[in-house]
Each structure stands twice: as structure tokens, then as C-alpha cells.
């Protein structure tokens, strides 16, 4: 049947038209479209990669910053602790010095008191001695007169000067 036989004229027209379109599109059509799409794909994936890298770098910087902050804080704490220690140490030292000083003063005072006491004792002794001698002198002088009056006189002496005798 005629329907199933290719027509030479139409075959020629088809061949011409199709090949022209094929060569035009193969030259300036498809490669441009495919090339551009591939280029864009590459660009997009590159950009994504770059963005990821930038993100990573940013994360690194952030981490560094935090580390520095933490270090600074630790340093601060350490310094505060040290100064605190220094302060207590100073106070302790001052206290110790003060105590030493005080002890020294007290010791000096005691020494002085003891010395004065000794001096006072010596003085009292001397006075007692002098008093005794005086009394003995007066006694000796009155004894000669009267026995009764002698005893009264001693009594009177003692009454007049009780402190001196006690001491």
C-alpha cells in the first residue's frame, strides 16, 4: 500500500530540515544550555562549600574567643586569689609583729615593775633599818630613865608609827 512507502521528496525535505536544525542546535543551542546549567551547578556547589568553610572558620574563631575569655577569667580569678592570699599574709605578719611588739612591751613593763619593786623593797628595807636604829636609839635613851615609862614609850612609838613597824 502506498501509505507504507516512504516518499522520496518528503524524505529529502525531512533530511534537509532536520539536519539543519540538528546542526544549528548542536552548535549554538544545546551546548550553551547544558554548559550554562552545569556551570551554574558547579558555582552553586562551590558557593555552598565556601559557605560551609566560612561557617567552620567562624566557629573556630568563636571557639578561640571563648577559650581566650575563659583563660582571662581564670587568670583573673587566680590573680584575685593571690592578692587575697597576699593580703591575709600581710595581715598575719602585721598581727604577729604587733603581738611580738606587745609582748616585748609587756616584758619590758614587767621588768621595770620588778626593778621598781626591788628598788622599793630596798628602800623600805633601808627605812626599816633606819627606823629600827632610830627606835633603838630612842629606846636606849629612855631605858635609862624609868622602866615603866620605858615600856609605855615603846607602846606609844608603835602606836604613832604602826606602818613603819609593819613594813
Amino acid at each position, binding site marked *: 500500500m502506498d*501509505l507504507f512507502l516512504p516518499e522520496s521528496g518528503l524524505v529529502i525535505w525531512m533530511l534537509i*530540515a532536520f539536519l539543519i*536544525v540538528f546542526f544549528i542546535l*548542536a552548535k*549554538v543551542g544545546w551546548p550553551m*544550555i547544558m554548559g550554562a546549567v552545569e556551570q*551554574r551547578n558547579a558555582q552553586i556547589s562551590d558557593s555552598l562549600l565556601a559557605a560551609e568553610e566560612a561557617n567552620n572558620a567562624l566557629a573556630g574563631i568563636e571557639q578561640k574567643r571563648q577559650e581566650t575569655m575563659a583563660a582571662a577569667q581564670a587568670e583573673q580569678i587566680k590573680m584575685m586569689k593571690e592578692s587575697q592570699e597576699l593580703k591575709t599574709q600581710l595581715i598575719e605578719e602585721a598581727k604577729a609583729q604587733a603581738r611580738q611588739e606587745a609582748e616585748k612591751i609587756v616584758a619590758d613593763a614587767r621588768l621595770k615593775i620588778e626593778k621598781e619593786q626591788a628598788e622599793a623593797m630596798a628602800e623600805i628595807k633601808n627605812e626599816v633599818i633606819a627606823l629600827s636604829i632610830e627606835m633603838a636609839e630612842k629606846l636606849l635613851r629612855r631605858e635609862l630613865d624609868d622602866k615603866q615609862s620605858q615600856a609605855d614609850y615603846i607602846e606609844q612609838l608603835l602606836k604613832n608609827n604602826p606602818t613603819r613597824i609593819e613594813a
Partner: protein
Amino acid sequence: MKHVLKHIILFLLVAWMSFAPTQVVAQDTEQPKEEKFDAKSFIFGHTGDSYCYHITEINGEPICVWLPVIVKCKDGGSWHCFSSKHVCELKDGETYNHNGANFYVSPISADKYPGKLVEVKADGSLSRPFDISFTKNAFGIFFVCIFMLAFFLPAAKMYKKNPTGKPNKYQGMVEWLTYMVLDGIIRPNIPEKQVKRFAPYLLTVFFFIFFANLFGLIPFFPFSANVTGNLSITVVLALLTYFFVNVFGNKHYWKDILWPDVPIFLKAFPLMPIIELISTITKPFALMVRLFANILAGHIVIMVLMALIFIIGGMYGAGMGGVMSIVSIFMTIFMTALELLVAYIQAYVFTILSSLFIGMAQQEPENE
């Protein structure tokens, strides 16, 4: 609901209007002459090729685009080039004399050269000249080709100007169509290294078949040519696929054909090589027939549904014809919708099988 109904009515009206010319033609030729409606001529007249582009008919005057007839007479005859107006308007028995040769277009119902231009020799014998007329189908081919260039080249130009810029909507559409074929059909079948080499041919084939199929479904002037439902077109496409498969086929492919891995008695007496060589031809042959038959069948079914109106009308009167026309239009809408699917499927099948055959000819031997 009302909105949907409005659309359906509008669609039916448009569908009716697009088929109206064929009915007018048929009725005009049928009723005044009391002729019997010739379904065969009607169907094959619309699905086949023709020398003029019949648009419509107003008051019995045909409105046509007259395409050039270019023929070379047999036996050392001369070239003849004239408008198809002269041969298409001839009445029965008349011939057109051009520079000493007499031509007429054989009717579709004729046994010899139906629907073709024939030369009447001086002794009354008929001879078919070498015919490279720019027919309706040739026009259809060029229309599709020009449409493809107009559709894809501006996008390519935009891409060339700004390859990495943001594509606009038109570029997006082109990109989507291109990559639908590239990633969906070509890449799975062809080794990645060869994709760039064969993609242009396969893309061109896909879009040529796809647009030709779609345009064949639009039933008015610049479209409606049954391009892919014509064997002359599919034979060219199949030959090109044959060319791309075999000319670019690698050593391994040819070794598999001429000296396959089978027992020696199968290939020494060259049974297998012969079978393999025939198979290289049958593959594109199947491609050719599949595309041609699918599209032609779809067109014929639509035309039969239309012809049914006049057949029923002729048998049972105009009333039944009117009833039949409503039924026919619904069925035609269904068929046209189906043909839209077929338009894509056939383009897809042709391209996927072509890329499969090309890909098979590019296989590297497996390491064993």
C-alpha cells in the same frame, strides 16, 4: 460548579468550531451532488500528505495555501515547478499542461498513485515523476523546525550572555524540558563520558517528535500536518539513529556483532554474525514503524469518529447525524486527550530506545 460548567461549554464550542470546517467541506461536496460519502478519501485525505494546505471553504470557494510543486519527469524529462493551485482545482479528467508536460493529481480512491501527482504521457500512460514538491508535510516539518529554533535559540543566547545568572521563567521552562530529557532519558542509557557527544542528536530528535506530534493534534492552519504519522519522516529519524549507533559504535560493539562469544560452529558458519547484522537493522526499523503506526492510528481513529457523523447521517438522515455528532465529539475529545499522552509517550519511547541502542554500542567490555 457553574464556573466549571462554563469552561466545559466553552471547550465543547471550541472543539466544535475546530472540526466545523471538515464538516462543511464534507457536506458541501456530498449533498448537492447526491454523492455517497467517501469515508476512505475523507480519512486518508486528512491523515496523508497533500499538495496544498486546505484551510477552509467559504461559499464553495476553497481557502487554501498553495504550496509549490517541484517535479522532474521520468526518462530524462525536464524539471517543472508550479503552484499547486493549477493541479488541485482540476475537475475529473482534466490535466494541467506545464511546459509541454501534462499533470494531474490522482484521487485518493485511485488504485495507482493515490493522492499523488502523475504525468500523463502522450500515449495516455501514467508515469510518476520524481517529486520533491514542498507538500503539506514538508511545510509541517519546516514549521516544527522553525518553532524549535525559535523556542531554544533565544534561551541559548541568554545563557551565553549570562551563564551563571538567575534564569528567568522562559529559561526555566527550556531548562526543565532539556533536563527532563537529558537526566530522564539520555543519562541512564549512555556512558557518562559520551553524553555530551550524543545528547544534541537525542535532544533534537525528542523535541522534533514531541512538537510534531503536538502540532499534528491542532486541527487548523499552520499545524495539523500529520508529520510523524508519515513513514517518510520516521524513516529519516530511524536512519539517523542507525547512523549514530553504527558509525560511532566502538570496537567491542563490532566484535560482538561479527565475532560474538558463542561456540565456534555458530560463528564460523556465519549464522550469528548474520543474525546480529540483521538485528542492527531491525532495531531502527521497529523504531520507525512504532512511531509512524502509533501516530497514524491515533489520527485515523479521530478521523473515523468524524466520518462516523456523515456515515450515520447518510444512512439515517440528518437528525441521526446530529445526534451522532454529539457522541462523536465527546469521543474525539477523549481520543485527543489520549493522543496528547501518546504524543509524549512516542517521543519518549523513540528517544529512550535510540539512546539505549547508542549506549549499547558504546559499552566497554566487562573485565572478567
